[in-house]
């Protein structure tokens, strides 16, 4: 039997700690342990042998810390250290004469960097770092890959993809959770388990961070949701600081007793981490080797996850927010064309606030690069929104990109019963473990009968199985056709829905509002139909969470079927809806537009602008006679230290609301609002703090400048390229630290070298006028208003 066959069928033992043993044998502070694979191979081999003699079946090669980032400062390559590390395990295995199964694990740890967009390393860069390790370990004939002591689900995904795309080896993932069952980056046990099962790893578990007693408390969370063999490699207790020295104090006997409980609770692969020794493992083997382990069972859960939580399909229906979709929305389409990502993010945040559980993401427009935009949207949204996403596209490349860069177990919308669709979508869905929305239509179109739709559903289930996609990962859409074109359309859908849910045992989804196309007062029909569909087994409705009638129907339904304890969600929703002042009462604002802006009241500013427009005041006059003078009052107050940053920003936001009202009117009249000129703004390479830059951007926008925001950690080359391509005359650069001001200087130097005719203004916490002069900036802005004054001066001189 090989490793995969034994896994989960018989108990297997990992080895224990390495670091402490190496320190005892003379490893110095600051010395990289993996260099000993080459400098002191005999010591490493000896430790492996001690673990084998203690009864370990799986020996982790001394490769945990090897990666391209750490090897930069070493005289050995990743390949050399990994090859030597795996070879030492194989040699140790050769020297131990035993009938026990023995396997060499390529041990992969965290790269120690946070991934973009929050951190500085891209997903692809992380993937490449892992790929190099995997290729070396595979060539060195490792028997399996152990990804361990990892705590960022996105990094874990990069590592697993690298392992599976560059080898056929079994993959075991053990993660470091805190006592509350959270990863350092916020994930929980259920969310990463969903993701890892989807990606097709072979075993999942915990290591490091906790001792066996703490793992006992967390293990039930894992056994509840995990359909794979479970690994437990705890530390020898929690770290205890004695005289400032970190130690682990749980002795072998006590450790082994706890480990026996973990095995009885469902772990089938056990070993140790920090502080554990061959003595610990020996005792664990003695106590556990004869325990008959429980067979691994499929929990049959239909689940999707975001980076930080899992969402299960159950009896209680889910809300899938439908608003990130350009269909029939001219403003959304324009935002896509303008690459206005903030507009998309706002749509997402609002839906999250309104109670959506999953967000549908559709960015398809004929004239845009959909795969690229899908990748960007998915990575952007998941950086700020906690909800799982449903990648919605018919473009298979956009599908693949969306799923690959998704941080969790995604939902995919959709496949249908056409041969071509199934052949192209199933492999992608399988690879990334997506929960797949299946449309009950095929080459023959949408079947007109219930039977017809069920037949397509069955065909899809059968074909998916051939690709290794289980029923639990399929969610069936019985399809909604409007009742304005066929009186039985709702009946057919509801009956198909009911039978799919209760006879075929599949979860279901519907685009609910399609039912009312062509009818007036659509929300009345939609709401009634939504309730009927939920009552016929709808697991998830794709709806607009901002629609009060729909959400009222949803909360009422849950309360009625007994899925809302003490009606608390219903009450919370109802009181929210009632508390809200009615729209008409706020219409009569007591402030004029300039007062509203000075006081920072966005709603009043917007209303007053609309009033002025209705009174036929033209847009330009509103801007020049009301808006800008009001902003100037605040700006001046700020400069004179009579008003402060929060007030400045509130006024800016009020002005923005006013601008938006003006823009909406202009675009109705087919006009564009005028720009005073383009300004490129960026936080320089190496710097990840961008609030200062964003404040400046907000203010400049309000003064009518077109802002090209390149974000944070921006390469000098990218700034140069944008300035050249868009013929920009002013660049704003921000840097926070002395270590990143050098990149500000480099950017300015690059712009000057290419003789670009543009001014550069700079700002940031550590900058001073002297420093700005030294690095060749044209203007040093000591605060946000400074940049406005400078840009305005350039504009007035005709230099923008």
């Amino acid at each position, binding site marked *: 039997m090989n490793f995969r066959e034994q896994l989960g069928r018989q108990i297997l033992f990992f080895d224990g700690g390495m670091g402490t043993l190496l320190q005892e044998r003379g490893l110095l502070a600051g010395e990289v342990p993996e260099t000993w694979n080459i400098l002191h191979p005999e010591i490493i081999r000896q430790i492996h042998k001690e673990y084998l003699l203690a009864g370990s079946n799986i020996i982790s090669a001394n490769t945990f810390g090897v990666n391209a980032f750490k090897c930069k400062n070493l005289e050995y390559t990743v390949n050399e250290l990994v090859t030597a590390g795996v070879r030492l395990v194989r040699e140790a295995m050769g020297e131990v004469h035993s009938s026990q199964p023995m396997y060499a694990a390529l041990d992969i740890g965290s790269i120690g960097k946070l991934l973009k967009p929050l951190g500085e390393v891209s997903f692809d860069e992380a993937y490449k770092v892992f790929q190099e390790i995997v290729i070396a370990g595979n060539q060195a004939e490792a028997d399996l890959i152990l990804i361990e002591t990892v705590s960022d689900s996105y990094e874990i995904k990069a590592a697993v993809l690298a392992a599976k795309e560059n080898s056929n080896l079994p993959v075991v993932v053990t993660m470091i959770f805190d006592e509350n069952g959270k990863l350092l*980056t916020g994930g929980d046990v259920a969310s990463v388990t969903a993701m890892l099962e989807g990606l097709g790893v072979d075993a999942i578990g915990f290591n490091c961070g906790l001792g066996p007693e703490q793992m006992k408390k967390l293990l039930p969370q894992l056994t509840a949701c995990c359909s794979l063999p479970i690994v437990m490699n705890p530390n020898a207790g929690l770290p205890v600081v004695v005289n400032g020295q970190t130690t682990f104090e749980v002795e072998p006997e006590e450790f082994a007793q706890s480990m026996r409980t973990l095995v009885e609770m469902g772990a089938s692969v056990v070993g140790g981490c920090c502080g554990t020794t061959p003595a610990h493992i020996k005792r664990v083997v003695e106590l556990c080797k004869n325990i008959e382990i429980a067979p691994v069972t499929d929990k049959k859960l239909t689940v999707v996850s975001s980076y930080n939580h899992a969402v299960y399909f159950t009896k209680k229906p889910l809300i899938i927010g439908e608003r990130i979709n350009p269909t029939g929305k001219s403003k959304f389409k324009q935002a896509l064309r303008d690459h206005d990502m903030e507009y998309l993010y706002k749509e997402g945040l609002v839906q999250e606030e309104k109670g959506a559980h999953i967000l549908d993401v559709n960015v398809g427009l004929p004239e845009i690069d959909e795969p690229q935009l899908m990748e960007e949207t998915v990575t952007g949204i998941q950086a700020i929104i906690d909800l799982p996403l449903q990648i919605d596209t018919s473009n298979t490349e956009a599908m693949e990109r969306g799923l690959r860069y998704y941080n969790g177990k995604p939902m995919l919308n959709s496949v249908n019963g056409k041969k071509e669709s199934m052949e192209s979508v199933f492999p992608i869905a399988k690879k990334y473990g997506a929960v797949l929305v299946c449309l009950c239509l095929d080459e023959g179109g949408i079947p007109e009968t219930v039977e017809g739709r069920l037949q397509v559903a069955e065909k899809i289930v059968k074909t998916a199985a051939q690709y290794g996609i289980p029923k639990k990962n399929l969610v069936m859409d019985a399809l909604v056709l409007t009742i304005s074109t066929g009186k039985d359309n709702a009946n057919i859908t509801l009956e198909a829905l009911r039978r799919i849910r209760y006879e075929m045992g599949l979860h279901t989804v519907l685009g609910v509002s399609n039912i009312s196309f062509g009818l007036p007062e659509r929300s009345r029909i939609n709401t009634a139909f939504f309730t009927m569909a939920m009552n016929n087994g709808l697991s998830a409705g794709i709806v607009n969470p901002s629609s009060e009638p729909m959400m009222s129907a949803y909360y009422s339904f849950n309360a009625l079927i007994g899925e809302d304890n003490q009606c608390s969600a219903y009450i919370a929703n109802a009181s929210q809806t009632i508390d809200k002042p009615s729209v008409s009462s706020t219409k009569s604002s007591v402030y004029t537009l300039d007062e509203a802006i000075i006081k920072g009241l966005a709603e009043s500013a917007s209303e007053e602008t609309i009033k002025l427009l209705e009174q036929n005041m033209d847009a330009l006059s509103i801007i020049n006679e009301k808006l800008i003078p009001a902003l100037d009052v605040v700006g001046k107050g700020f400069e004179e*230290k009579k008003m402060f940053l929060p007030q400045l920003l509130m006024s800016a936001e009020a002005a923005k609301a006013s601008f938006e009202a003006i823009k909406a009117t202009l675009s109705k009249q087919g006009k564009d609002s005028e720009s005073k000129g383009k300004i490129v703004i960026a936080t320089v390479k190496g710097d990840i703090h961008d609030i200062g830059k964003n404040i400046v951007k907000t203010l400049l926008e309000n003064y009518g400048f077109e802002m090209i925001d390149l974000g944070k950690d921006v390469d000098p080359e990218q700034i140069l390229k944008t300035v050249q391509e868009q013929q920009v005359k002013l660049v704003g650069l921000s840097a926070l*630290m002395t270590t990143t001001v050098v990149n500000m200087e480099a950017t300015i130097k690059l712009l000057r070298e290419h003789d670009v005719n543009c001014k550069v203004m700079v700002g940031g916490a550590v900058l001073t006028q002297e420093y700005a002069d030294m690095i060749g900036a044209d203007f040093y802005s000591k605060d946000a208003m400074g940049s406005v004054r400078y840009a305005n001066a350039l504009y007035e001189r005709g230099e923008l």
Partner: protein
Amino acid sequence: MDDSNREIGNKVNLREIYRYLGYGARIPDDSIQNLIIEVLDALLCVIKPRNIYKVFHSSISESQVVLEKSGRILVFESKNLADNLAQCNTVVLLAATLGIEADKLLQRYEILHMTKAAIVQACGAACIEAYCNILQEQILDELSKKGTKLFLRPRFSPGYGDLPLQYQRMIFQELECTKRIGITLTDSLLMYPTKSVSALIGLTANPQSCHIDKCSQCDNITCAFRSGTVEK
């Protein structure tokens, strides 16, 4: 909000938040104060503060600080640090963070509500300071149990005075900040999550040397956020 976050909330110095927002020693008007309380509350509901520290024996010379613990030796070349730690036999190396959640909240506000973004930035800075203050008091209590009454010197971090940021690498390696509490260090030596602190804290039996306002020690005397700055 859990109890430990509530404690941070209780210890947060609102005046620090005002100062970070550019108010100097002034007090914001009621509407802004309310907004600050609202944002601070939202922040305290999401953060997951974590810390790690080690205690070292220290020997201080004129411009060098040597930390030693069971054979491990860390050397810092810095006159300012040596001055700060003068007469300290014990030095704590501390790293603490509010966690990635603070940055996520900041990013959300940057899209939805720029004013709140600026405020959460200021609140985060004040919270991590409050958290460090709580921690160092706990550490002090623990170490004072052994007998001698000890006093804390102000926290000193890489980047202060003549202590180069490059020492961050050594501190991160020693404390295993990334693995233990999830702070990562960029190539440009910035910490992420951004609301994080790494510092050396001296402990001394000499009571008169304690608690000097670290802000007023900084060389950047024109800084807009300098404590006590009202207006020029």
